[in-house]
């Protein structure tokens, strides 16, 4: 250290001494403040002493031996600008699987940081079944909110060719791929999209607004893979046929979390017209509401509602689907239509099952129990084919409703989503319509009708 001090400019050394003096004078100020305000400081200090005893060595004051000399050296040397980590280039493999593509093997290269200059990614995947390439590029940028913790706004621009689920509202690509590859139990239907899309979302205190648009050619995919990891035959072989159409679509969304009522409201509108230059003409509306209410300290009541309506053209890739996450006692995407109404309510036990059984207050893997009741309907479907069809009805008939009840066993791992549960639901259909008791395994948030 002394060798380093030998070359210290006099001006810098004077600065060091001046700052050291400032520190010393501050300590004097602290002493005088304490004398003038001993009551509150003593009160706070007594609690701090209690904290010291509880935390022990973790709360011990720092040993300052050698700190002052190190600080003097620092003050006499200019600092270094933080090391630039280049553009944060990263490489990652990509895997996918569904019965329309077969295996999809490839990789992604990315550069940049989401919260600084934004992140550019490029991906490419070879599909073993469809024998074609998927991929493209994307630019994503995020801005922090004023509190510097939450995301205040996000922008995403994406172009290329991709395979997507027909259900625009509830498709979970990772879980679907896993289910298809391992168990052959994927019931999603797929289409191909070629083109570009942009989405901008702005979030504020309890309010969020979003807008976007896309110019994409949508085309159908046929089933090309009927194999699974363990040789099980897929439960669904054919892939529903998407209509070939060039879509020029604009969309807008808004949501609000009410201040004094535990209720969140969401609205999302998609509109495609030929005046925008595309072939498709439709308007799609989706409204959702949900909230959670504490019934005492041990029970949570979480009701949610959803309403959806498609007008203009009954494209299968714009239809509303029923089953799975929307109605557990019905297989996913069993029914479709141009209108959908859903109601669901969960009753959750807040305490861990192990704690209730006296096996410890903080179990390693806390399991929660719950019960649910739900009802859903889709309308506006061709009675012969079952495919979505235009209708003038804005509300379902009474006979369109399907109801259910059931029980749930849940575990919240905390990652990747902090509030999502691994759920095992056992659903009992209500009404004589041919449905059977169903075991439904999922990973989703309790209020899954809400997109945020």
């Amino acid at each position, binding site marked *: 250290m002394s060798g380093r001090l030998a070359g210290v400019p006099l001006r*810098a050394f004077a600065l060091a001494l001046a700052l050291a003096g400032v520190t010393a004078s501050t300590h004097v100020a602290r002493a005088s403040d304490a004398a003038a305000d001993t009551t509150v400081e003593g009160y*706070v200090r007594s609690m701090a002493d209690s904290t010291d005893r*509880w935390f022990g060595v973790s709360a011990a004051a720092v040993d300052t031996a050698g*700190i002052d000399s190190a600080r003097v050296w*620092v003050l006499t040397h*200019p600092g270094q600008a933080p090391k630039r980590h280049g553009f944060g280039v990263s490489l990652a493999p990509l895997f996918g699987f569904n019965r329309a593509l077969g295996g999809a093997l490839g990789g992604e290269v990315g550069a940049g940081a989401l919260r600084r200059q934004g992140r550019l990614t490029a991906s490419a995947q070879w599909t073993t079944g469809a024998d074609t390439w998927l991929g493209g590029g994307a630019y994503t940028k995020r801005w922090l909110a004023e509190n510097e913790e939450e995301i205040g706004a996000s922008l995403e621009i994406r172009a290329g060719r991709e395979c997507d689920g027909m259900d625009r509202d509830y498709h979970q690509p990772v879980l679907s791929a896993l289910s298809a590859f391992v168990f052959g139990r994927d019931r999603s239907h797929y289409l191909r999209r070629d083109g570009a899309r942009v989405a901008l979302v702005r979030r504020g205190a309890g309010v969020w607004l979003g807008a976007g648009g896309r110019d994409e050619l949508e085309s159908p995919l046929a089933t090309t893979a009927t194999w699974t990891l363990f040789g099980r035959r897929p439960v669904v072989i054919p892939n529903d046929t998407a209509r070939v159409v060039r879509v020029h679509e604009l969309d807008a969304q808004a949501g609000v979390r009410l201040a004094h009522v535990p209720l969140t409201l969401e609205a999302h509108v998609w509109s495609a017209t030929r005046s925008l230059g595309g072939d498709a003409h439709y308007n799609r509306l989706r409204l959702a509401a949900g909230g959670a209410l504490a019934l005492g300290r041990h029970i949570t009541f979480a009701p949610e509602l959803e309403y959806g309506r498609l007008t203009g053209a009954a494209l299968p890739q714009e239809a509303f689907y029923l089953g799975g996450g929307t109605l557990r006692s019905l297989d996913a995407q069993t029914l479709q239509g141009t209108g959908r109404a859903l109601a669901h309510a969960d009753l959750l036990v807040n305490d861990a099952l192990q704690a209730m059984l006296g096996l410890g207050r903080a179990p390693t893997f806390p399991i929660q129990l719950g019960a649910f009741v739900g009802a859903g309907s889709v309308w506006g479907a061709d009675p012969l084919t079952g495919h979505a069809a235009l209708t003038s009805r804005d509300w379902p008939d009474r006979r369109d409703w399907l109801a259910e009840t059931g029980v749930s066993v849940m575990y919240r791992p905390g990652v990747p989503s902090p509030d999502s549960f691994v759920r095992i639901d056992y659903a009992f259909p209500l009404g004589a319509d041919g449905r059977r008791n169903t075991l439904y395994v999922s990973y989703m948030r309790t209020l899954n009708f809400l997109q945020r």
Partner: protein
Amino acid sequence: MSFPVRTLTLIALSATLLAPSPSAAAPARGGAPAATGRPTLAVEDTMHTEVPPVLVNAPRVTLDEILGRVARGETHRDSLIRDRSFLFTLRIVGHTGPGGSPVLLEERVTQVWQRRPDKLREAELRHWMKDPPKKDGGDDGVRVQIKSGSGMSERIVNFAFQPDARRQYTYRIVGREVLGDHLIYRIAFEPRSPLALDRPAGLVWVDTRDDVIVRQEITFRQSPLPLLLRGIKRMVVERERVGGLWVLSRVLARFETTIPVPDLGSSFDFGMQYSQYALNSGLPDSLFATAASAKKGAVR
């Protein structure tokens, strides 16, 4: 400044009447002479009086108003700090569970200088590790970095009392304590949604003279990360008064892991200490000059 004679007379008369008479007090203190041989009985000499009730007609401060004051008080506190320097100590201690013997695993001491709007200089003065990784090169010595961004709002203290957090939390007053001319409110907060299991609840102590938070204890209804953490057994955020302002002094937390982790054990502590504060000392530009700019003669 005339004092009515009648009043003086009244006061003197009252004093005479209220003063204990030696003759009357004697039996009370000494009791009756024990000539009869019976036990001595004490005589009650407490004076009974009644005062008329006084109706205090003043508006009660609502919880909503207190929350508003705290938000404003924290903003005001933040606005009073133009620059600051402090010693930041990060400490990780393993094996802190019952029956374990705590082991200091890592300690990092950093000097920090901050100046509005966005000047930040950090110098790591000491970095001690129980098991340091093998270095392929020599010791780097003291590392100094100049960065931008210098938040001083101490959100770890007041995150639940920011205006935008009012939608996410519910609050209740759990206690008031008078300390000299200070009134300390204890306010509990918890997530409004019972499904927000990853969000913290807690208890804060608010000094209503400055309307700032002086201490906070944070709890979680469930572990925020159940797959890795069994829970957070205790978390404390403390402030101390420096130069008339309350500033962050310590953040201490004890984590319990789902499975024992090498070195950490099944319980470990994470501590952050902020000490040796200097506030509004007028940190010069040259302190934030980088080596490159100093070389160009930019140091003033």
